Each structure stands twice: as C-alpha cells, then as structure tokens.
C-alpha cells in the first residue's frame, strides 16, 4: 500500500535475503486506448469507436464506485515513459519483478471483455487480450505467465477459447471474475469448467466483475469501501454456489483459485456449509461429501490483501485451518492495496511453510518448476 500503516511495536521481519517468490496476482494494463486494435477485427474496432462497451452497469467509462486512487493503482507506479500504472514491462521489471526476485508472475488482466452485455464483443475482446498478453508480456519475459480470459456469460464460446489456448505454455490458468449474471456454480458456466479440467488448467476467480445484480443481498451500498470489503462476501457466495451445484463433484480434477478476496473467511464458510449440509443434504443429493472436503481438495487462495489482525499471530490459526499448502502469495501490483512481500507474514513461520507460501505452492499448482 502507498498508505502509511501504523508501525508494529515488534520489529518488522524483512526477508534476510531476497528469497525467490511467486506473485500470483499481477495486473497488466494497456498503455493506450487503442493498444488492442491490432488484435481486433475491423468490425469490432468500429463498434468500440461508435458504441463503446456496455457492461452490466451504467457507466460508459470507469467504475460505478470511484476508486481510492487513479486506476486503483499506486501513484509511484506510473511508468517514466508515460501511460497508466502497470502498462510498461520494463518498469514492471524494475519496480516489481527484479527487486522482489519474482520467479513466477501470474498476469490477471481485469479490463477485458468480461462482464459485457454484447457476448460476441465479449469473446472478441477476450481473445484479443489473450494474444496481447503473449506479445506484450510473456514472450518478452519468461518469468511472466498469462491467464486465459474468456467471455464469461457464454459458456460455449468461452470453452472454445480455452481449447484453442490449451497446451500453450504462455498460459497457466483460466480467469473468471466473482460477480457474474448468475452465481458461478450455475450450469451456464459448466462448459468453462469442463474445458479447463480437460486442459489441466486451474480456474482463477478474481474479485470484481459486473453481472447486473446488486452487490449486496440487500441492494446497492454507498461506498467504495463497501465494494472492497464486499468482495469477500461475493467470493463466499460464488464458492458456496460452486460446491452446492456440484461443480467439484462433477469435475473432480478441477482446481480453483480464489484471487484477491481474502482467505480469512474460508474456515467459517466451510464449517457453515458442512453444518447446513448435515441438515439439508436431501435437497442436494449430488453433493455427496461434506462441502469442506471439496474445498480442502480443490480450492486455493491468493494472499493479497492479507487479513491484518491486531494480534498478527491470530492469522496462524486461520492459516492452519485452511492449510499452509493452499495459500499463494500475491502482491496485486500495481494496485494501491499492494502487499509488500517482506512484511505480510508475521514472524515465527517454519522455513518449509514460508517457502510453500511464497513460492512452492504456486509452482506446484501452476506446473512451473
């Protein structure tokens, strides 16, 4: 964060050496408005110029809840050559990848074709973003890996995009957002899970997205902070839907990553699902095992923004309940709520757990050594 934190009374625990890390949530940006045009058919270039993009929300430009910082990004992350934060590979190398010894950086582009009402445009933009990730990023820096973005509301075309990219080593996961027209467990999204499972790619579910639903179950809140804190509630509802619709039962090799929505909620959600399932399982006979078992076996979490208890060691209880093998370190670069690698973990973590948290879990999940 570029916001001053209260200093802990305990000494900070900087990494004594720059141990290699994986950063599982990096957001690459376009330097110019038309940077995607070389990857788009003339028809779509024309469409964008004349009609623009109509998402499942009313604003033609920008988000309905104004961010806390321009582009929700650090003010010190503007590249010297111009353009928004996160739009320059050389500056990303200089500011993020080199000084933090990032060995694996997973790209999660956010302003893509997802959450758009015109599903053909959605598919075209996603495909363009996927080409752009290779050309601008992964082909130029081998540490970076891309995520396949897909037109989320049209399961069949999304599955086709995944199959087209399957086997391409530039890509390590499929990317969805948490807020869609329906909860993510619904059947319309199953072709995505089927294609991802066949391709051996995890499906990342990143916070945000537009699906047209009020972002709380009691309507639209007022403030950006409510949207930000609320990502964890959206993510919980999405994960509950995935479990209760039987997605994990139907696709047992599917792996899912919950990205940028916290992880502190995971134990209580799993306990609550288990308890309700004991009472109500006759309604969902396709959920054959206690929900917590599917979650324990098939779900991972990225760490940023790390929950930040007053007593930092309380975090260890929660991580123990989730499993040290399930967390993937992430900075969220270049966003304003960036987590600094040297200070996210309280002191007192074993070397094995520390290595798994910062690097090993991600290498294993994404098949990178």
């Amino acid at each position, binding site marked *: 964060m570029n*916001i001053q934190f209260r200093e802990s009374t305990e000494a900070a625990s900087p990494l004594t050496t720059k141990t290699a890390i994986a950063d599982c949530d990096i957001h690459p940006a376009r330097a110019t408005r038309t940077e995607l045009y070389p990857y788009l058919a003339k028809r779509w270039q024309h469409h964008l110029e004349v009609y623009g993009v109509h998402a499942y929300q009313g604003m033609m430009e920008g988000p309905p809840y104004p961010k806390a910082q321009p582009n929700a990004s650090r003010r010190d992350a503007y590249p010297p050559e111009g353009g928004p934060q996160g739009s320059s590979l050389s500056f990303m190398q200089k500011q993020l990848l080199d000084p933090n010894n990032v060995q694996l950086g997973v790209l999660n582009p956010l302003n893509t074709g997802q959450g758009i009402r015109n599903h053909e445009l959605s598919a075209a933009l996603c495909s363009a973003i996927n080409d752009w990730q290779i050309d601008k990023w992964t082909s130029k820096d081998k540490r970076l890996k891309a995520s396949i973005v897909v037109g989320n509301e049209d399961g069949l075309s999304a599955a086709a995009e995944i199959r087209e990219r399957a086997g391409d080593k530039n890509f390590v996961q499929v990317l969805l957002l948490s807020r869609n027209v329906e909860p993510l467990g619904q059947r319309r999204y199953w072709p995505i899970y089927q294609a991802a499972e066949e391709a051996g790619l995890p499906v990342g579910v990143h916070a945000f997205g537009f699906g047209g639903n009020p972002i709380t179950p009691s309507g639209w809140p007022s403030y950006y902070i409510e949207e930000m804190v609320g990502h964890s509630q959206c993510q919980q509802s999405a994960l509950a839907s995935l479990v209760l619709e039987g997605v994990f039962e139907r696709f047992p090799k599917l792996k899912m990553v919950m990205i940028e929505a916290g992880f502190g909620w995971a134990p*209580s959600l799993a306990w609550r*699902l288990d308890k309700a399932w004991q009472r109500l399982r006759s309604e969902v006979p396709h959920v054959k095992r206690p929900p917590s078992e599917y979650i324990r076996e098939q779900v991972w979490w990225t760490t940023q923004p790390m*929950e930040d208890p007053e007593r930092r060691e309380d975090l260890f209880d929660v991580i123990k309940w989730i499993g040290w093998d399930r967390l993937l370190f992430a900075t969220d670069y270049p966003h304003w709520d960036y987590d600094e690698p040297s200070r996210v973990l309280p002191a007192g973590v074993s070397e094995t757990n520390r290595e798994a948290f910062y690097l090993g879990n991600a290498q294993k999940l994404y098949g990178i050594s």
Partner: protein
Amino acid sequence: MASLIAGGVDCDVHPAVPHLTSLLPYLNDYWRDQVTTRGMVDLVSQSYPKNSPIVARPDWRPETGKPGESLEDMQRHVLDPFQLTHAICNPLYGVQMVFSEDMQAAFCRALNDWLVKEWLDRDPRLRGSIVIPTQSVEKSVAEIERCAQDRRFVQVLMLVMGDSPLGKRALWPIYEAAERLDLPIGVHAGSAYHNPPSAVGWGSYHIEDYVGQAQAFQTQLTSLIVEGVFAKYPRLKMVMLESGVSWIAPYLWRLHKFWRGVRMETPWVDRAPLEIVRSNIRFSLQPFDAPPEPETLIRLFDHMQSDELVLFSTDYPHWQFDGQDALPEGLSPDLVRKIMIDNPHATYPRLS
C-alpha cells in the same frame, strides 16, 4: 459440555403465526375484508419453508401445524428445561415480503398485537420484538412508538436482507426512535426477496440461501459501520440474530484493514470498526458454525478479543443443536454466565 445455568435469557425464539387468518381479529374492517375478498394466502417466506429440517428440530416438530405455533410446546421445549427468566420472541412471519406500505403497516400492527395477546400476556417470561413496515420509514417509526409504550417490547426487528443496506440514511429515523426508547435493533436472518438473496445473483437451493445469510450479515455490518450510524446514535445497540459467529473476527480484520486504507471516503467514522463492534454490536449464539473441538472454539472466542459480544439463544424451534447442547463445548463458566445472563441484560435495558 459447558453447563447451562439457571436464570438465562434466550435472545432468539420464534413463535409462529399459524396462518394469515390468525391475524384477522387484529386487522381493521378494511384489511379484514381485503384479506378475505382477495383470497390472500399465508405469508410463508422461502427463508423458512415449514417442513425444512432446519426449521424445526425433529423432537420439537408438532404433529400438525407450524413448528413454534404452540406456547405450551415452547414452555415444555425451552422455557422450562433451560430454566430461563426471559425469552425474546422474534416472529418470522413473512410480512416483510409485501410491497404495499399500507398493507405492510396493517400486517405489522396486527402481528405485534397478536404477539402481545397470544404470547406475552400468557407467559410472564416472554418478551417481544416490534416488527416494522420498512416500506415506509414514517410508518415504521409510528409503529415503534405505539408498541414501545408496552415495556415488554424490548427490541425492534428487521431482516438482514431487506430493500436497502441498513446503514442507508433514509432509515435513520428508525434508529433515532429506537435509541430514544431504549430499544436495540435486532437484525434477523431472512430475506424480503426484494433483491437476489446473494451478492452474485439467485442461487438454486434453500441450503444456498441459508448458508448465504452469513454473507448478508457481513455486508450489513459494513454498511452500518461505514455510513456512520453509530457515530450519530452512539447509544444504539444492534443485535445480529441467527447470524453465525465464527466469521466475526476474520471479517473485522478485513474491514479494519480497508478502513485504514480508505477512511478518507467516510471521515465521519470516528472510531475503528473493531471498537464500534465491541461497543454497539452483539450476536446471538446459535447457529454456532464450528467444529466440535473445544480448542477451535477457544481460539475463535479469543480472536474476538471480547467476552461481551455473544448473547445466549436457542433459536427455537430451528434445529441448531440436539438435546440440551445449546452451549458449544469449551466455554468457561465465566463466559457461560456472561453469555447467558450478563450480556443480554447489558444489551436490552428493558429486561430489567
């Protein structure tokens, strides 16, 4: 098993309205005529289908009728065996689903009068919550003021999933009246179904709605805190009823972190969210969503860093535990006393 103690307060029991026609004696001529002429049906919410296993414990389910509709059953199942001095009645009749503010106001008024006559007048241990017609803030305030003259009403009751986030300024006259009249606001699980029951749309299943109640409580706490309700009404208490409690600490860690990051957006929030919760928000004990091992429970309560947050509840007749096991294992005798007696009395001024 932590031992129950006598003299406790059960902060969440649910007397059931047998049928909409049970309210006819409490409606005026016009609304009695509306109900009968239009053939209105019983107002049963999807949040609590009558035959769902969570809606009644097998041994608390009557042979006929709705679980919770008999006072004698409630006495036999909870008031007597748990040796309670008080139980707070939170009717979950589906009046919140109505869209017309006039009809809703008539039904709420009838429901509150029904509660007095059929329950509070018949057992001195019972206390009531005022159900309000939230389609109209003005009518809600009027109903609060009308019912508050009876000191046996100890709380105002709202649903966790209503028309708008609970912190919204339009609702504040309700909070002003509640604070002035020594009434906490009880926020109970359940939806008016005026919005999709999750933040990501309509799910398929009853179990999904039930699990999702916890997420609804979380978004409401955020709304209440960041809109500044407790800066404006510092004496107001709010009680999250049937919310679950095992999510509280990690939720607050996250809210606290973002508040520090973007507090410039809501500068009227003059205290840390953790402090606001400790002074103004309480939670009913059941359902307690956690593994049965005492060591997990001890850690969960320790994470809350307060022994004043939780109030005893059985959630009668809902099926949250079996036998007399209303208290999860691992609570110390001191904490049992706080949960069963001290915390409810500190929360509800009208109990004493």
